[in-house]
């Protein structure tokens, strides 16, 4: 607000001014108290300095020009950078003295009638320092520019260090740039400040969006900053106006669409309760993907850079399903106002720069486990080397050529052709299921699980019952889901298709055992076990793929006890899988599990193995003992062993 405006509304201005001065002085006294304790080493935090600096600027604007308090505030403002780095005692004392002077000054601002008792309550702590200052009055006063120069160099060095990291933190970059801007306000001309504001967006592109500028442009940006820090003259960035009527009409259509869509989103966000998360929706993300290029097409490069940063920020929110903070929503509302052709004339580079910095400072904190590594069984590249989580989208885009390109309708034309490809197809699907779980593409993961179950049934279905058409439909749908995921869109499975698959699985005819086994009592026993496991898994909503390998010559006598033991052990396994779901989710493992039951004859006994993929922690000794008590007494040598990277297996002989 200008001084003239402040004079026009004195009654409204006064309470705010009193409140501001009181609050400011309290902040200053607290900060300076710390400085007093360790005067030569202490530095004020950058956040604190920026806050105080902003408050001082506000105060200056409230006061009429030439007011003695305003003059003192300006003096104090110029001294503030001294608080950012250790200073000789003399500078610190100068600063304290400036504060002390201000504390005395309100008495002289008669028209404003400040509450003296409030303002004067604080300065007692400063008295010893003021005495020190009075004793050192002969000290040479330092020009603000002398303080600013090394400070800018130091900030630039920090900025270079942060930007050189493999994943520079946007908040840190924002803070450093905002600090540079704040420091520049102390001793620079308006022209210099504008030059810096024009430089900041270019730097942000160099650091945050390196793919948008080549190496040479990035070097130029840093060189420009260095020149600026050296207080040399800067070339200004020209923001040419667009006079192309056809292009402007097209732009207006795009901006109308933008406003309509954004208003819908903001209205929806406003209706939400305080605790409800405000999530980025796809149309809003898409708008911000297009906006930078739309604006660049009409030569509005400063706005385009701001929108590019918005796209990045919203993309982080989208990828990690983070709620948009209130402050960010307010900034989004500002952006919506600015993206109006009639507003562009009044836009200054400083304002756009400030918004960019605010946006950087409100950058969402994405989960850090993105850099962790995840082991995918069957990954062909790098063999057993775990894949970094961040690299999985890249892996997805290079792998799964079979699923996306080679699978054709002919593969599912009949059961015989299908059998030729089924093994590789299943391996590919299992790998995709793991990768989808690792990058939290739950729609693809659950569809893969269902498709694997379908394949498992189809594998052993009779030729006349072979669901070839359904399998081909599923693979086409899976490809669509992968295309959506590759474009980072939300993958939404076709609910109708899911219902058809589930229906087929529910009524899928059981495979007939080979003639040699059909009459064997073990076959009937295993059918009962399988029915039990599948019913239990369905009732606890645990997706499970269950398969059996049966030897031909199983002895008959232990079969009854074996059935009892299997039911007890499988109940434990399935229920433990349900219990371990949160841990599996945390470890980015698939929700669906698979169990393989193997029965072999060992003389007069049966050797049983239950191989459980995906879970690698064996039960502790106590649990194993308890489990042992639930099994028939004829069960011998119950133990569990882990299969590195592939799961665990339970074994016993009966």
């Amino acid at each position, binding site marked *: 607000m200008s001084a003239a405006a402040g004079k026009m509304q004195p009654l409204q201005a006064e309470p705010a001014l009193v409140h501001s001065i009181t609050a400011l002085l309290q902040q200053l006294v607290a900060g300076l108290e710390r400085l007093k304790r360790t005067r030569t080493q202490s530095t004020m935090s950058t956040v604190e300095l920026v806050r105080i600096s902003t408050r001082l600027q506000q105060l200056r604007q409230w006061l009429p020009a030439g007011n003695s308090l305003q003059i003192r505030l300006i003096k104090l403002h110029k001294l503030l950078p001294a608080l950012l780095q250790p200073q000789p005692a003399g500078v610190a004392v100068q600063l304290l003295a400036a504060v002390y002077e201000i504390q005395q000054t309100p008495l002289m601002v008669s028209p404003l009638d400040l509450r003296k008792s409030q303002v004067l309550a604080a300065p007692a702590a400063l008295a010893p320092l003021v005495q020190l200052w009075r004793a050192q009055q002969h000290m040479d006063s330092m020009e603000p520019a002398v303080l600013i120069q090394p400070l800018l160099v130091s900030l630039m060095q920090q900025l270079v260090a942060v930007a050189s990291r493999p994943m520079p933190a946007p908040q840190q970059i924002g803070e450093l740039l905002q600090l540079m801007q704040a420091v520049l306000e102390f001793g620079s001309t308006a022209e210099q400040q504008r030059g810096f504001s024009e430089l900041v967006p270019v730097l942000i592109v160099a650091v945050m*969006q390196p*793919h*948008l500028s080549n190496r040479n442009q990035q070097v130029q940006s840093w060189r420009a900053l260095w020149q600026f820090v050296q207080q040399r003259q800067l070339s200004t960035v020209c923001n040419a106006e667009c006079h192309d009527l*056809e*292009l402007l*009409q*097209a*732009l207006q*259509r*795009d901006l109308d669409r933008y406003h309509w869509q954004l208003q819908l989103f903001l209205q929806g966000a406003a209706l939400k309760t305080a605790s409800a998360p405000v999530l980025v929706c796809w*149309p809003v993300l*898409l708008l911000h*993907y*297009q906006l*930078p*290029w*739309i604006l*660049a*097409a*009409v030569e509005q490069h400063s706005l385009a850079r701001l929108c590019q940063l918005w796209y990045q920020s919203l993309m982080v929110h989208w990828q990690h399903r983070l709620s948009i903070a209130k402050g960010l929503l307010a900034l989004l509302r500002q952006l919506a106002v600015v993206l109006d052709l009639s507003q562009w004339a009044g836009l200054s580079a400083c304002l756009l720069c400030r918004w960019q910095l605010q946006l950087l400072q409100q950058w969402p904190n994405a989960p850090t486990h993105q850099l962790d590594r995840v082991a995918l069984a069957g990954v062909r590249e790098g063999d057993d080397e775990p894949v970094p989580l961040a690299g999985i*989208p*890249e892996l*997805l*885009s*290079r792998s799964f*050529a079979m699923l*996306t*390109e080679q699978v054709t309708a002919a593969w599912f034309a009949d059961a015989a052709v299908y059998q030729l490809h089924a093994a590789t197809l299943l391996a590919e699907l299992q790998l995709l299921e793991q990768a989808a779980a690792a990058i939290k593409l739950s729609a693809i993961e659950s569809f893969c699980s269902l498709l694997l179950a379908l394949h498992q049934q189809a594998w052993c279905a009779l030729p006349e019952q072979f669901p070839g058409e359904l399998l081909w439909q599923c693979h086409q749908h899976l*490809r*669509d889901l992968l*295309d*959506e995921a*590759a*474009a*980072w*869109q939300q993958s939404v499975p076709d609910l109708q298709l899911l219902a058809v698959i589930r229906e087929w699985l529910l009524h899928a005819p059981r495979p007939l055992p080979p003639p040699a086994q059909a009459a064997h009592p073990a076959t009937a026993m295993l059918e009962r076990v399988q029915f039990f496991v599948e019913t239990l898994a369905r009732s606890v909503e645990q997706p499970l793929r269950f398969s059996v390998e049966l030897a031909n010559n199983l002895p008959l006598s232990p079969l009854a006890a074996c059935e009892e033991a299997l039911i007890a052990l499988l109940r434990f396994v399935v229920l433990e899988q349900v219990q371990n779901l949160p841990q599996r989710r945390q470890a980015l493992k698939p929700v669906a599990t698979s169990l393989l039951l193997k029965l072999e004859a060992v003389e007069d006994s049966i050797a049983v193995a239950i191989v459980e993929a995906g879970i690698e922690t064996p039960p502790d000794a106590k649990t194993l003992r308890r489990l042992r008590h639930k099994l028939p007494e004829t069960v011998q040598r119950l133990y569990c062993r882990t299969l590195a990277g592939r799961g665990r297996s339970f074994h016993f002989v009966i």
Partner: protein
Amino acid sequence: MSESAPLAVVFEDSATLALQLTRMLAELGFAVQVCDPSLPNLPLQPVPALICVELLGAGSNGFKLLRQLAARHACPRVLLTATGRSTDHNWGRRAGATAVLQRPFTLQQVRACVLPVLQHGKVHGYETQQEQQELHS
């Protein structure tokens, strides 16, 4: 635009970006038709010489669209992307893109991308003298 100008079909839902690309392609000698990516119906006559597909649009997915188009049309297909991700290039080519054009692009970059693609794709009606010279230079 002469009647013999080859047809380029652009799937893009932003009016500004569609106009920008239309002008670039027109300068390269194409007649351009802009289509809504959510309604991927290509003109049957004349047969397009080039198809440009934007990766992301309202209600559309460029990869999916490319697959559908690749199954029906043999002409060169260019995927336009602005995400800056290398995965777009890999997946785009696997979905049927002959070339991938990364925003921001200039006329020179469009020319550099489109000409080799056209050369490889044996375009019908690409007869502008200037372009013929460039093709052979």
